[in-house]
């Protein structure tokens, strides 16, 4: 058989292509598009939610804060209905008009959450101009993990990361914003999120000193675990807190976790709706669904993170927590951090 493609078929094919491209959406049933971190939308939860609502929930799992931003900003919020984001990052989405405020009347479960997350006006970062832009879901502190065989007595300050005794045995986290903040805390600076030019210069010097003391800067908890397993590591700046502790203990590591006396940074992940949300009710139903006690419990059991619904071991009430905030100039911090890393 010879292929007979005349002008008319060629033309109709060309015309039909966009229609085929868009038809998949047009006939779809109710659909919720979710962007989440691994562990925030487990298969069994998604299935239960679908059974309850009769809608299809499609989840895209994401690997870094940077990608969430690139994806949401690049599509101007049109690619997703609801996404997980921490309160510090959230601010740039609100600035960019990329979020849709929540309607609390559609979130009955929010009334049942832990006392410290009930009054959202007291949770730093989730509200702006009287509107609720995101709902707290999960949190943790960023403390110190230490190997009990190698570090004795237990550390109580971040200063230990500069101790030459542990040179080449330290894992730190690869993020300029956080590193400037925690170094500021270590140096006794009151507000680590709004630094002056002079303070930044001093912190940069101290970070260069830190760089020569660490083995590597990691980005994911599993990466840190692998590094720990195949190297002589004594101390870890635990960006992922309890989750890392759980993973490392599961792997048989003899480690412990402390929140240092100068205060540990703490992050809070929340659910926000995009500006391009297609079905607000369905998106709210998703958030409300995840605020159940059962889900909170399972989240903490599976990941080790603290949840906002059920009290868990994460970050006890006596620990000094410094909630992450949008920093004065992320671009500047990133540039300075690049300069630190570029030091030979």
């Amino acid at each position, binding site marked *: 058989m010879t292929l007979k493609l005349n002008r008319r078929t060629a033309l109709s094919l060309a015309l039909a292509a966009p229609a085929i491209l868009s038809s*998949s959406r047009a006939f779809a049933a109710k659909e919720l598009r*979710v962007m989440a971190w*691994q562990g925030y939308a487990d298969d069994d939860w998604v299935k239960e939610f679908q059974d309850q609502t009769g809608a299809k929930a499609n989840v895209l*799992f994401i690997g870094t804060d940077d990608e969430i931003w690139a994806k949401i900003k690049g599509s101007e919020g049109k690619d997703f209905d609801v996404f997980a984001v921490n309160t510090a990052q959230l601010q740039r989405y609100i600035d960019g008009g990329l979020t849709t405020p929540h309607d609390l009347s559609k979130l009955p479960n929010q009334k049942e959450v832990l006392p410290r997350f009930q009054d959202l006006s007291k949770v730093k970062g989730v509200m702006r101009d009287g509107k609720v832009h995101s709902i707290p879901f999960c949190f943790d502190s960023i403390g110190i993990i230490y190997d009990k065989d190698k570090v004795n007595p237990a550390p109580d300050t971040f200063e230990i990361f500069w101790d030459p005794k542990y040179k080449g045995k330290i894992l730190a986290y690869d993020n300029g914003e956080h590193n400037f903040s925690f170094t500021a805390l270590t140096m006794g600076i009151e507000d680590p999120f709004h630094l002056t030019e002079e303070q930044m210069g001093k912190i940069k010097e101290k970070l260069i000193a830190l760089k020569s003391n660490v083995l590597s800067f990691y980005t994911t*908890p*599993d990466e840190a675990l692998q590094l720990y397993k195949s190297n002589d590591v004594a101390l870890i700046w635990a960006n992922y807190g309890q989750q890392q502790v759980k993973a490392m203990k599961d792997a048989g590591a003899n480690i412990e976790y402390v929140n240092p006396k100068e205060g540990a940074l703490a992050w809070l992940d929340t659910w926000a709706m995009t500006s391009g949300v297609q079905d607000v009710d369905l998106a709210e139903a998703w958030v409300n669904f995840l605020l159940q006690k059962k889900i909170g419990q399972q989240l903490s059991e599976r990941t080790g993170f603290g949840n906002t619904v059920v009290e868990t071991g994460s970050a006890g009430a006596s620990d000094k927590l410094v909630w992450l905030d949008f920093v004065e100039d992320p671009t500047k911090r990133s540039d300075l951090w690049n300069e630190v890393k570029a030091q030979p």
Partner: protein
Amino acid sequence: MMRLPGYAIGALWAMTGVVFLLLYSPLVIPIVSSFFAITHGEVQWHDPSLASYAALTANAGILEAVGNTLIVGFSASVLSIVCGTLLAIHYCGGKSLGREAMQFAIYLPFLMPPIITGLSLLIFFRETGIPRSLMTVIVAHTVFVQALTYRTIVVRLQSIGPEMIEASTDLGASAWQTFIHIILPNLASTLIGAGVLSFALSFDETMITLLVTGTDSTLPIRLWAMMRLGFSPDINALVAIILALTTLLCILAVRLLLPGEAQPAE
């Protein structure tokens, strides 16, 4: 290709062996561990088990992602081969307007860091109102691997040389006949090689995919997201299966398309 003395052949085999040792060492670890029980992230070498494989069958999300990856990889490599051949035939045909510039354009998506290619395509799709889906992923991958297929085909086409084609035309063959009888047979091995390479590239592409997809995940995206909580043991099983299947697929492709004896290798 030439009569080599025995010691030279021996030396070549030895070097190839070392290269294979390098190439395969990272593959062996996950595959071997897939056949043992894993508790608390440690492989239990005394306890052979197929538990990882059993766990995999229950992981619908991952299997769907694998399916998507295969669809995208296959479509993108076929599309890029077709487009690459057409482009190569056009741009090899004597002087065409702005040839150098157009070639650079074809190379660009490959030369740019993936985040640039990804973001610009995402913004392009957004502006033109094309919803993000597996379709856009396929288009993006085609654009991305096009550089590689195009380049490979051009190099081969140039080596065929104009004489054969001139001879064919002089004998009264139409352009279509020349293409089918002269160009295509000479391109076959190149096309398959380019196809496999572009499939491999597409199979692993993470950043562009992430930016231009809708809510469909491919395997690299799932793996990338999993890094936060760590890989579950069933990933080892998955890796072993994928490797077995793709190897089988390659063998079949080679057997069906390039029968060992008919190939004018010597």
